[in-house]
């Protein structure tokens, strides 16, 4: 299982902050992003979101494995 976290506008569109996806083999971040939208519907602006795996920023081509937490991080606006 991969745990997906959504925030701000993405969570609002998905109507949830947490999604879990079953994975049998390692997938890329980009593939996870596709599976996520298959499950919850299209998420506008997700292509502008950074992705963190286990709380570290990663690239779209990086691999995600069973047990990882994948966070989609829309443009931040703290401060």
């Amino acid at each position, binding site marked *: 299982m991969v745990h997906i*976290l959504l*925030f*701000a*506008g993405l969570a*609002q569109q998905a109507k949830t902050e947490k999604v879990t996806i079953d994975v049998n083999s390692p997938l890329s971040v980009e593939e996870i992003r596709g599976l996520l939208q298959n499950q919850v519907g299209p998420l506008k*602006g997700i292509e*502008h979101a*950074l992705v*963190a795996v286990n*709380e*570290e*920023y*990663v*690239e*779209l081509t990086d691999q995600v494995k069973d047990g990882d937490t994948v*966070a989609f*991080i*829309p*443009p*931040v*606006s*703290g*401060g």
Partner: protein
Amino acid sequence: MKRFNITNEPINNQDVIDQVIHHNAGAVSVFIGTVREMTGDKQTKFLHYEAYVPMAEKQLQKIGEEILVKWPKAITAISHRIGTLQISDVAVTIAVSTPHRQDAFDASRYAIERIKEIVPIWKKEHYTDGEEWVGNQKGTEAYPAGHPEGVEK
């Protein structure tokens, strides 16, 4: 108190300052971000901040480390509040101490710019005429190349 802190409670500025004062500090530059009522002709009623808390605290700590590389004697503390904030509430307090004042100003300014680039915190403005997640709607505020400049991987 943690030196790099995301909190639901009101921020006590002096608590943040106390984290960085020491015998060879001669200057402390403190930046306090407060909730402003008017932005152009839009009137804010209140704000809501949310964060990916554990990662946000790690990223704040990373900013402190970046500062220590650039200004080797600088000590940094940052608290960012989340939840619902009213006009004039403190959203973020940054304190940086250094031996000499120039570095304190530069490092403090660096910290607030980096918070706006790499720390997973989001602000929702509740205006008198509607609400909006800041930075989420406009292409201009999206990360230009998928990553903010300087994000370490």
